[in-house]
């Protein structure tokens, strides 16, 4: 139990460190931000519908 617990804790710490460091970076160029937003909306539209489809289908 000790080895998995240490690894999980370290892993979560690493993920948080990497995610927070990247979250702090801001996009300074407006055009890049707009294009990036379009991709984000498209990806989330797909993921939301996929999530619903899978969780209706699997049960």
């Amino acid at each position: 139990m000790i080895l998995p617990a240490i690894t999980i804790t370290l892993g979560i710490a690493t993920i948080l460190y990497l995610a927070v460091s990247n979250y702090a970076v801001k996009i300074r160029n407006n055009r890049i931000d707009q294009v990036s937003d379009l991709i984000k909306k498209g990806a989330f539209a797909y993921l939301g519908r996929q999530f619903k489809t899978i969780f209706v289908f699997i049960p």
Partner: protein
Amino acid sequence: MIMIIKVHGKAADAARTSSLDAFRIAFMGGSSMGMLVPIAGLIGLTLLYFYFPDHTMLIGFGFGSSLTALFAQIGGGIYTKAADIGADLVGKVEHGMPEDDPRNPGVIADLVGDNVGDCAGRGSDLFQSFSGDVITGIIMGIAFVPKYGPGAVVFPLLLQTAGVLASNIGIMAVRMFMSSAKGAFSPSRILNTGLVITAAIAILSAFALSVYVLNDVSIFVAALSGVLAVFAAIFIARHYTSVTGKPVREIASAARRGAALDVLKGMSYGMQSPIVPIIMILGASVVSYIVSGYSLYAVAIANIGTDLMIGFMMSADVFGPIVDNADGVAELSKQPRAQRSLSRLDSVGNTMKAYTKALSMTTGTLTAVVVFITYAQIAGITQLDMLAPMNLAAVFVGAGTSFLVAALLIGSTTKTAEVMVDEIRRQYHTIKGLLQGKAEPDYARCIDISTSNALREMAVPGIIAVAAPMVAGVLFGPQVLLSFIIGITVSAVPLSIYFSNAGAAYDNAKKYVEEGNFGGKGSETHAAVVIGDTVGDPMKDVAGPSLVIFMKVVGMTALMLVPLLVA
């Protein structure tokens, strides 16, 4: 997805001023997802392991993760390839536009596809491999308690944990190399060094655990053979798919005489490519079996050996689509300086994607073998009579089923791509000024086409994966079901390697011509290699990876059925 969805924009923005900053942002974004895959698996498996004394209940976790991965891979694959084919055929071939041109209505759907296919799809694939391998190892370990003691059951979980720890250290090492890099730096050298560090720590940990927990060095040899099988598969995949390799250059050369010869040459090399990896991958299982004194447990451990670098490989793999997307964002937002920085990172990202596909193939093949060995073990089948007509027929029907699923997947991608091509053509005809760049395309309509079709088309292969083994097992018994699984595995493994390598070779033959060889962009050879790449797209990104998951879902369904079949 939540973690990486804005990273490409940040990487594109950073690339305007510093290539190193773009590299750092893209890799850190990739690592946050790359580490989440094994950590999520580890949390789920550790909790289930310690709170449910009956470890066979873990099979449900494996089945759920495999089925979800099948949906994610098929849906993501159809989405991304239909958008890619539509955007390429109309934008590039018919109107001579460059990649990611803002006038192309399919371009945003194509970029979204990189996220849902390459990131979410592959992430869920490696998640189910990671989980499935530990589960089969634990179940196999129950039978080996008399030989090794209770350590045999927990060892697969501990070994996989050591691999996650090694990946964590490898990622931190890359982060350190990035911090110390100044001016000119080599992204591929930094990532390759990180991979070697990860492999070295994983191997050392496997040795320590084998000696400390099981007191058997042959189990370490099994884990080592799994790691070496991954490197061998990477080497072979590189030979067949790298721009510098003979096969890709010959495919490009054949394209000088037309698209048909380009496609035929690619088929020929693609069909050649499975034999050596199969010998290497299954060689690892045979070596483990012999060295351990004919122990099936060692085969399960060799399978876990293929997973030991998953965290690092997944991080490097996600880095690929992030820089690819960043490059697209830079093109769409007209940032030429960022594009120059990102194109170098993009080629490194493509290499890393090729590495991960080889890893996925290796671990998928061994997992499928171990799943049916585990099935035979818990169903109490010690011998299978291949001369019994029912068993023989089941092998052939299983082999045919893999082809049926591959046909459905390629057919679905083609059907969606047809709708996409029609829609992009419609927009060029109806939106005035679009071709001249004076009007905005309707990106949302293309996104909607990819989304609805991908979700609709993923259902049938999923139903086949679950229903076929149920029908075979319930109607004809456990022996016929085992024969059916063998048939599926024996055909799906070479077929998926063929699809993946041929598709990647077509893609790189196109890149080779785009580098200026055989007439370069705009030449007839270029038109031929673009057609070859279009043929290869559903092969390498839909059928190939989905078949690997398909055979594991079939195996996991069979494992779930055992209590019903032997009752």
